[in-house]
């Protein structure tokens, strides 16, 4: 005969009446759950990108970013200005860089480069080359012509990307604060020279950049850029139009103004950027910049170094567009 089982009617009530385990009765170690609660999933790349964009938008909306006294906006440069330039740098001009070890890890230095290409795209590519190849991702602070800062939008953008006016007080202030400064002493004569004169260095100004380096004792790093001459081959110059618009020149290239806005697309030449051996300037002693002959000699030395490197690089180069 089976005994009848007593089934409690109010199971929950009974359980509730049990006294709760006192602290001492609890197991000393919390039992390890068999299925641990999953750690918060690492946000996907897309989510991370969207959140970064939102964070950037928030910083911009609330003005929560810092600019230095020259107007350099690192947040904007890193997030908005460098990525499109980097795409052009990698995919359009396929820039190859050598001599990165000649850039100082820290401290000031003056990078002096040849200038070409009708539009100063070589300066922007050099800035990308320095930032992306330097072990500490330093920014190149460029010295620009006053015309750049007079043009609306362009002038404001130039300051935010770290450029400042090419004058000795600004250059020396940047070098003293330990920045990498880029200068293109040929100026408009270099960037706007006819295609027939390609890779022939123009006059190097009055050597103002040398006296800035001498006064601050920073090394001069000659930089040679091959490939920028071919992006807009300037075969003519409409001087009357240039005068009308207040520009230093008005170029005619095989595609501009023939194809209109399409002519602004640069030809996809293959670029090589070489940073040369640093030229020390702190070995000349005080008041060296007061010696015009020394300044002229140093200027010539830098100019010759760049010119000879250009010839060597051109010899090694095959097709301007393939490499």
């Amino acid at each position: 005969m089976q005994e009848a089982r007593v089934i409690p009617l109010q199971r929950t009530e009974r359980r509730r009446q049990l006294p709760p385990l006192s602290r001492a009765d609890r197991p000393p170690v919390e039992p390890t759950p068999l299925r641990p609660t999953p750690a918060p999933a690492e946000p996907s790349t897309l989510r991370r990108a969207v959140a970064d964009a939102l964070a950037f938008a928030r910083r911009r909306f609330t003005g929560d970013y810092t600019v230095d006294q020259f107007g350099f906006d690192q947040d904007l440069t890193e997030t908005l200005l460098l990525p499109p330039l980097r795409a052009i740098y990698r995919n359009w001009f396929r820039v190859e860089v050598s001599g990165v070890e000649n850039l100082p890890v820290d401290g000031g230095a003056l990078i002096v480069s040849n200038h070409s290409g009708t539009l100063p795209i070589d300066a922007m590519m050099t800035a990308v080359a320095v930032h992306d190849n330097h072990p500490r991702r330093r920014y190149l602070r460029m010295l620009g012509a006053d015309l750049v800062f007079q043009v609306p939008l362009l002038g404001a953008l130039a300051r935010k990307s770290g450029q400042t006016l090419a004058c000795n007080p600004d250059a020396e202030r940047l070098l003293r604060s330990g920045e990498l400064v880029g200068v293109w002493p040929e100026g408009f004569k270099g960037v706007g020279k006819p295609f027939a004169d390609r890779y022939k260095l123009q006059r190097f100004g009055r050597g103002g950049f040398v006296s800035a380096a001498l006064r601050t004792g920073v090394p001069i790093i000659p930089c040679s850029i091959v490939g920028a001459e071919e992006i807009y081959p300037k075969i003519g110059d409409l001087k009357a139009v240039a005068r009308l618009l207040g520009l230093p020149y008005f170029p005619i290239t095989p595609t501009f103004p023939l194809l209109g806005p399409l002519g602004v697309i640069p030809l996809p030449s293959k670029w090589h950027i070489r940073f040369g051996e640093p030229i020390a300037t702190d070995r000349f002693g005080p008041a060296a910049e007061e010696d015009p002959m020394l300044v002229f000699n140093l200027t010539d030395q830098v100019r010759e170094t760049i010119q000879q490197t250009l010839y060597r690089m051109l010899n090694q180069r095959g097709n301007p567009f393939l490499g």
Partner: protein
Amino acid sequence: MTPKVVLVTGVGGYLGGNLAARLAANPDIDRVLGVDTTAPHRDVVRRLGRAEFVRADIRNPLIAKVITGAEVDTVVHASLTANPPGPSRRTPIKEMNVIGTMQLLAACQRAPSVRKLVVKSTAAVYGASARSPAVFTEDDAPKDISSSGYAKDAVEVEAYVRGFSRRRPDVDVTLIRLTNLIGPRVDTVLTRYFALPVVPTVLGYDARIQLLHSEDALAVLEQAAVRGAPGVFNAGGDGVLMLSQAIRRAGRIPLPVLRSAIPAAGRILRGARLVDFSPDHVRYLNYGRVVDTTRLRTVLGFTPRWTTRQAFDDYVHGNALRPVISPELLEGLEHRVLGIR
């Protein structure tokens, strides 16, 4: 050398009035005289304490009698108007600035008791242009300033002060070039400008602005008067704000205006008696101005307590300006995307 008898000009204004009150609170100074054609503001009068107010015009030779009669040894010339906050009539201000300074200096030159002269000037003497260096030092010569602006007055006043120090080499002359003032209590062209609900800017330009908190401006003038070294000093807060950044921090809406339309916009603002929009000010909004303050720190021994950003934030909080888009909204959105709360 602590001054015994100090004469402060321009006590009807914010800087002059509060400076006289600060000096009067210094027990080492025997007597503080405040001079202006208009009486100081009620709030200032309460704090003036034992400082005496002399209603006199510095353009009048009578000022010489005040100086010699009271045996003034330190003169603080704080009445120079370089950035009038609102629309004002040009001619009286120019006359007050230039002729007033000439008369005051003439009176000081005749007074053997005067040992020290402190002149409040403005960093606007450096001008603002695409061709000027990014940071001005005290040795930079004025360049590209308009031929008829308030900055021109300051340049002329500085020239007269240099002439005075040549003729009275025994007098210590300290010239302080203040950057634009900001703060919760001061009324300047920038405090009015940033309080506009829609702030007109020049399309395609973004200026670097350097500000000085009004309390710092008072402190630097006081230090120059009490124990300052002679010379020319720039005074400005650390760091820089971009004009666009400042507008965003204040939560205002920028309205970019074509450069050619700026005179018309300026006329509207002047007509509405809101804010002064002189050509000088427009150039400042185009290019901005930053000064080097190394000499202020090392030679005068003064370090501003507020940075440019802190001074600006103090102004924003003090005036209870509310941002247009609340930062919390964007931050919440950002956290939701990342899945954190």
